[in-house]
C-alpha cells in the first residue's frame, strides 16, 4: 500500500489539483486521472479490509475483497462526481466511498452463512432483557417497562430491527440485505422504534437517560 502512494504524482495529492476537471476531461487526461483515483481507492479499501480482517475467516481473499470495493467505489464516484461541492479535499471525499464499500463487503462476508432471526418475537427468548440478580430495583423496573414497551408500542417490523441490531449485534447493512432494504431505511425504522420507546417510558415517569424513575407528585 505504501508503494501505491509513491505512484501518485505529488500535484494530485495537493488541494489545488482539480480532480473533477481531470476526471471529466476526456481522452488521456481523464484516463490518467481515473487510474490515479483507482490507486487511491485501492489504498483506502485495503486499509479498511485490514482493519476488519479479524472478523473474516482465513479462506477469504482479502485482496479480491479490497479490489471489488475499490471498483465499486470508483463506479459510485464517477456517477456522483457532479455532487462534489468542495467542502472537503477531493481525496477525503473519495476515500469515504471506498471505506463504505469495503466495510459493507467485510460485514456481509463475515455474516455470510450466519443465521439472522427474522422473527419479530425473538426478543422474548433473548437473555439481554433479563435483569440479573445484581440488578437494582430501579434497573429491574426499567428493564421490565422496556420489555413491556417493546411488546406494546412497536410494530413487528420495528421489534425485529431493534432486537437484531441492538441485542443480536447484526450489522445494519447485513440486516438490510436480508430484508431487501437499505441501510438508511433500516436505520429509520430503528430510530422510530427508539423514539416510541423513549416516549412510552417517559410517559411512565422514567428519566430514560439516567434510568431513574421520577418521583410521583
Amino acid at each position: 500500500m505504501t508503494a501505491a502512494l509513491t505512484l501518485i504524482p505529488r500535484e494530485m495529492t495537493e488541494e489545488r489539483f482539480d480532480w473533477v476537471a481531470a476526471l471529466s476531461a476526456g481522452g488521456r487526461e481523464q484516463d490518467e486521472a481515473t487510474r490515479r483515483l483507482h490507486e487511491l481507492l485501492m489504498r483506502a479499501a485495503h486499509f479498511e479490509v485490514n482493519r476488519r480482517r479479524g472478523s473474516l475467516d482465513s479462506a477469504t481473499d482479502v485482496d479480491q475483497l479490497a479490489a471489488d470495493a475499490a471498483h465499486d467505489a470508483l463506479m459510485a464516484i464517477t456517477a456522483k462526481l457532479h455532487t462534489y461541492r468542495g467542502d472537503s479535499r477531493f481525496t477525503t471525499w473519495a476515500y469515504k466511498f471506498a471505506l463504505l464499500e469495503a466495510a459493507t463487503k467485510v460485514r456481509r462476508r463475515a455474516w455470510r452463512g450466519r443465521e439472522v432471526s427474522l422473527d419479530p418475537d425473538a426478543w422474548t427468548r433473548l437473555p439481554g432483557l433479563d435483569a440479573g440478580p445484581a440488578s437494582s430495583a430501579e434497573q429491574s423496573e426499567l428493564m421490565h417497562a422496556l420489555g413491556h414497551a417493546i411488546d406494546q408500542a412497536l410494530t413487528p417490523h420495528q421489534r425485529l430491527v431493534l432486537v437484531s441490531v441492538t441485542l443480536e449485534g447484526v450489522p445494519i447493512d447485513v440486516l438490510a440485505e436480508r430484508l431487501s432494504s437499505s441501510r438508511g431505511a433500516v436505520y429509520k425504522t430503528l430510530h422510530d422504534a427508539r423514539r416510541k420507546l423513549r416516549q412510552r417510558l417517559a410517559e411512565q415517569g422514567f428519566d430514560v437517560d439516567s434510568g431513574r424513575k421520577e418521583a410521583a407528585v
Partner: protein
Amino acid sequence: MSEHDVTRGMLGPSGPEIGCDACFEYLDRYVEAEVAGGDPDTAVPGMAAHLEGCPACSEEHDSLVALLRSSPIGSP
C-alpha cells in the same frame, strides 16, 4: 452485555440526529474538521448523535479518521 448497554442501545441517543444518507454526505467535511482540531459538531449538527446511534456509520467514521491520520495525502 450489561443492562446499561442494553438500555442505551435500545433507546439510542437523546438528541436530534441526521440519518445514514446525510451522515455519508457530510462525513468527509465532519472528519476533516475533527482531524484539524476544529468543531465538527458545529459544522454538521446531528452527526455526533447519529454516530452514537448507528454502529455502521460510526465504524466508517472511525476508519476515515484513522486513514486521514495515517496518510500524508489526506492530512488537512
